[in-house]
């Protein structure tokens, strides 16, 4: 198929998806309690925007993401470079790093709340734990490959 046709079909799918969702929810085909119709979601968007609550939620999540991401990258690159240079230390630590890397980090969320409280810090630490070990392992892999 030619490019304009593909885009047309894609647009059609998106529009048809939301239209049938809206239509279905309005006519009782699908339960609006379970699948809130798109129009209600948009209305809610404007309500929350006007009330100022939306931006509060968005900025909190953005701040948590940025703080955890930056701390994780900086710390991860530092340890990754050190371990990339020190062969023995790297080989000693590697199984432990891989084990921590393998823990499903979302499972740590409750214990992070216990340790770091219910504030922003526990979220930042959880993101840090996700980013840090990933970066360490990739920096080691990159420096080992060079």
């Amino acid at each position, binding site marked *: *198929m030619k490019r304009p046709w*593909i885009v047309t*079909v*894609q647009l059609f*799918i998106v529009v048809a998806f939301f239209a049938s969702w809206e239509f279905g929810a309005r006519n009782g085909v699908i339960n609006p*309690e*379970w699948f809130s119709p798109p129009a209600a979601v948009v209305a809610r968007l404007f309500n929350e925007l006007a009330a100022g609550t939306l931006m509060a939620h968005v900025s909190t999540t953005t701040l948590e993401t940025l703080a955890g991401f930056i701390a994780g990258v900086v710390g991860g690159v530092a340890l990754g470079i050190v371990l990339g240079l020190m062969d*023995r*230390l790297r*080989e*000693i*630590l590697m*199984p*432990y790093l*891989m*084990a921590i890397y*393998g*823990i*499903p980090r*979302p*499972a*740590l*969320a*409750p*214990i992070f*709340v*216990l*340790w770091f409280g219910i504030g922003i810090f526990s979220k930042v630490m959880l993101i840090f734990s996700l980013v840090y070990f*990933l970066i360490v392992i*990739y920096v080691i*892999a990159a420096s080992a490959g060079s």
Partner: protein
Amino acid sequence: MSAPADDEAAARRWTIIGGRVALGVGMIVLWEHSAELFGINPFWLSRPSLVLETAIEFHAQGDLWRHINATVLETALGLLSGCVIGITLGIALGSVRVLRDVFEPFLLVANAFPKIAMAPLFLIWFGIGLAMKVAVAFSLVFIVMALSTYSGFRMVRPELVNNARLMGASGTQIFTKIVLPSIMPWLFAGFQVSITFALIGAVLGEFIAAQEGLGFMIDDGMASFESSIVFLGLVLLLIIVWLINMTMEWLARRLGMEQSSATAAYNT
């Protein structure tokens, strides 16, 4: 090889093994005595001995295996359903040009979307039972399997397919002799990621609502401020992940598959 080089390699190997053992034992000892050494209340960190005691207690009540089995069952069902649907979708997208052109952006958006944010919705849709956990695990797995199958298809060398066709191979033959072997490493790499993702999905589903499972155990331990129970849950998860990784590495060696680095592109 000369004898001194052998000695050196052996010495190096023993340094590494010794270092690993020392580090592992050291961490357990430090953890056990963290209260005396650093003044950390065991309320926060528990102790290995307390975790072991908790494990024995749970086992005596018959709860230990109940929780492990629940999580393993949810993981397995999510993995199985996700693989079946995901691979089918990947094959459809990979082999039908029109489908690929139309649906590729949707697949990429679905991959980038943080699906674990949808978990609370799954509670409304699928209830508090097994189906909800399987659905969370499924939602993580099927995208990974669809994308890896589909990526594998893109790596199939067209000249091989053309040559086979010239030599009179049928569609089925091309699929089983050329396409399938080419996409196998991708399927394998995707599967490896998928197992962990399925486990994450099961545990997250249990966090949201459950009566059993390791996620429930961690959540329940948290609710009663029993860090020993939380750590027992985490240690059991760690053991499961470790066993899975060992098995997959062994399988990869047996099948002669390279460990693919294509695994980072997937998103929970």
